[in-house]
């Protein structure tokens, strides 16, 4: 077939295109994924019983601030990575900022604590549950994020997959924070930060297979 004929075919009775599809799909996926994830965490694990005490609220706020920071930045980047050539418009340094901040805070808090407390601060009571829960709960927000990016046209599939994983890990950590009773900065840095990084790596590995178009 002649290229001219294809061009003519595609231009006949052209419909206007919705320019906001990409951004809307990604935002809807993150919001919908967050609601679903909260429901799963509540049904599967339940929220921590001491949720209204002062100390619990402070640590909940820190965990949420970290997770929301990750999700917010990753969502903005995902709307860019979903578009052709969008990988030129992402900065690896900026996305690392929430992780660097929480690791720095963890180091400071370890510095001020006696060494005998370090093991409890780092491992907490439930490190294994955290290590398993965040990646497992992240499957649902990961699936909806991938669905949103598939509506667009990413050209760097590894990076787009990684950011879908990062969004999912962050959303999952947000929901898990409502259950988790381990209140220490090193715990958050290691187990929240680590599992979110794990989700990111899984997303990077799956991206080329799931996002091809």
């Amino acid at each position, binding site marked *: 077939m002649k290229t*001219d004929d*294809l061009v003519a075919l595609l231009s006949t009775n052209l419909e*206007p295109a919705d320019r906001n599809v990409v951004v809307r799909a990604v935002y809807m996926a993150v919001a919908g994924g967050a609601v679903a994830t909260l429901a799963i965490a509540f049904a599967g694990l339940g929220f921590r019983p001491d949720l209204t005490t002062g100390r619990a609220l402070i640590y909940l706020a820190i965990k949420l601030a970290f997770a929301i920071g990750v999700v917010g930045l990753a969502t903005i980047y995902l709307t860019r990575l979903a578009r052709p*050539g969008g990988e030129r418009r992402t900065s690896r340094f900026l996305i690392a900022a929430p992780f660097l901040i929480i690791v720095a805070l963890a180091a400071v808090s370890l510095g001020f604590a006696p060494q005998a407390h370090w093991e409890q601060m780092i491992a907490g009571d439930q490190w294994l549950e955290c290590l398993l829960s965040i990646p497992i709960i992240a499957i649902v927000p990961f699936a909806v994020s991938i669905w949103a990016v598939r509506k667009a046209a990413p050209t760097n599939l590894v990076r787009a997959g990684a950011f879908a994983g990062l969004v999912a890990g962050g959303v999952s950590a947000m929901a898990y924070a409502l259950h988790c009773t381990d209140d220490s900065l090193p715990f958050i840095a290691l187990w929240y930060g680590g599992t979110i990084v794990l989700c990111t790596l899984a997303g990077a590995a799956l991206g080329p297979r799931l996002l091809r178009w």
Partner: protein
Amino acid sequence: MTRLEPELKALMLASLDGNAASHRALLDRLSRRLRAYYKARLAAVGRGMAEAEDLVQEAILAIHLKRHTYDPREPLTPWVHAIARYKLIDFLRRNRASLAEVPIDEADEFLAAHDDNADAESSYDIRRLMHRLPEGMQCAIEAVKLDGLSVAEAARRCGQSESGVKVNIHRGLKALAALIARETRT
């Protein structure tokens, strides 16, 4: 070259608003650039020119189907170049060529050359491929895109709702693009 970007971008913005003449002018001008681009790239990895036109049409279909992913705040050239390069790499991967041979190219080189061989033909026939689509999609594309009927007329001819016709055209073109990608595997 510096003049070309604002011209093409203006055409793209009009085409996003549904202006068929602008869309046609845009795809026509881009196809000339894509032809020169793919001929040069395929020559660089030692492959035949015959495959260049298949790639031009794959890229044109992708630009058409993915035009909603263009961000109007950004220049158009890098967007087109990213699609062109993505389709090139996808093509070479399908044909098990070594990707290490693909030279890195920059978006601004993309506009530099054009090849106006408008009579160039690809190796497949879209009417033949269309017969492999489900009937509803086939009817909608034939009525609206080939016979030039309005969506309302096509809805009557194909026995579908108007929104059904629009959905079938979009899905049908996507399915055609996938069929073409499979056809051009050597």
